[in-house]
């Protein structure tokens, strides 16, 4: 298992911006029928979601989150050494949206900027990646942006996906910090790549002539993803916790990817973690893809002003298939309150 310890790195701040626009699950009663919607809502836990305006991109939400976070931390643009954006809904096929954001955030030309394509596991991969850049002692400050506007490319008549996803953009500030460390594991099971996929629209489909509209939409095999989640994820988590002697009682918050409520309850039961330690945001924000972990932390801790350390075990799992976890300590007050915005960039 790819696992280890990143030394001398700490999370200094987390911000999350979601669209102002809210959709209640009940609004879909006329599309799918009351019974179907009620059953979906009861299983997944989704009651409402924040959905981006047509003009509003992931980069816009991440931009708002990053701007407010830099302001709070008094991080000047020239002090940021790297910007990493993890998204599956970039502004363009090319170039990388991170380059556009480097310009919009007025970061220095000496700043490293690039995109990474990951979904549900994005945050733990991002913390590892940004942490690695700092831990190697080359960089002091890294801005990790994770977000998605997952409702782009969703078939409004497919009940499995039309009611599930929420949109959001997050910014996490990581900085060199003597004596602070993070423990991690990361895994990949590419054999399951078809479990969650948009089959067409990129190079693999360019020679195909008989593509249907459906091929450009997100297709998800729910039972396959679920089986992966209840078998591979707890097995790896148990092994990780044993490797680093992490006990449930020594973790204050288990920040799990908000796949659906049924899965969260199942993981709670299987790993013997009390639900009180697993914050839930899916009821008001939906499944928010890669940003679900920082969004949930902001939702749970955004009002906290008490400065005291808390221990977190963050775990992301899904599309790829890809999964991993990070165990870290951070100050309870690092999360900004949730930001609601209709802002979008006019310069694109």
């Amino acid at each position, binding site marked *: 298992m790819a696992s280890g310890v990143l030394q001398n790195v700490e999370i200094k701040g987390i911000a999350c911006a979601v669209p102002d626009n809210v959709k209640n699950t009940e609004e879909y009663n006329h599309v799918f029928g009351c019974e179907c919607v009620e*059953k*979906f809502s009861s*299983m997944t836990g989704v009651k409402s979601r924040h959905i981006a305006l047509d003009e509003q991109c992931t980069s816009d939400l991440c931009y708002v989150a990053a701007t407010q976070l830099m302001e709070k931390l008094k991080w000047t643009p020239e002090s940021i050494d790297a910007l990493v954006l993890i998204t599956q809904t970039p502004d363009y096929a090319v170039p990388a949206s991170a380059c556009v954001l480097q310009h919009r955030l007025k970061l220095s030309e000496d700043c490293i900027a690039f995109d990474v394509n990951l979904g549900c596991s994005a945050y733990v991969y991002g913390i590892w990646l940004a942490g690695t850049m700092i831990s190697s002692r080359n960089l002091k400050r890294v801005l990790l942006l994770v977000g998605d506007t997952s409702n782009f490319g969703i078939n409004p008549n497919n009940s*499995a996906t039309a009611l599930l996803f929420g949109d959001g953009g997050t910014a996490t500030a990581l900085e060199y910090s003597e004596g602070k460390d993070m423990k991690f594991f990361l895994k990949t099971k590419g054999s399951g790549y078809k479990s969650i996929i948009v089959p067409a629209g990129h190079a693999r489909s360019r020679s195909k002539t008989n593509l249907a509209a459906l091929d450009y939409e997100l297709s998800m*095999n*729910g*039972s*396959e993803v*679920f*089986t992966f989640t*209840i*078998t591979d994820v707890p097995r790896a988590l148990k092994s990780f916790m044993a490797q680093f002697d992490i006990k449930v009682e020594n973790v204050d918050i288990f920040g799990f990817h908000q796949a659906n409520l*049924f899965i969260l309850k*199942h993981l709670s*039961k*299987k790993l013997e973690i009390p639900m009180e330690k697993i914050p839930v945001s899916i009821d008001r924000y939906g499944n928010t893809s890669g940003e679900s972990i920082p969004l949930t932390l902001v939702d749970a801790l955004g009002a906290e002003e008490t400065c005291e350390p808390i221990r977190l075990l963050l775990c992301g799992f899904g599309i790829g298939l890809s999964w991993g976890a990070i165990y870290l300590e951070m100050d309870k007050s690092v999360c900004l309150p949730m930001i609601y915005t209709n802002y979008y960039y006019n310069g694109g």
Partner: protein
Amino acid sequence: MTVKEKLNKLEELLDIEQDTLREDAELDQLNQWDSIAVISLIAMYDCDFEKTVAPDRVKEFKTVKDIMDEME
């Protein structure tokens, strides 16, 4: 686990009135047999019987008895 216990467990899982489910009931004829039922069943096998039953295997089930035969 007796046959009655298994049936009662499935009735609870599938939200079916107690003591009404029969072993020979065909799954296609049950309103409650849908994709969420498949996931609930996989979760039950995992938690209560510590076994992984693949979704493709569950989709092969024709009757309630097929479900019960895996509850060991």
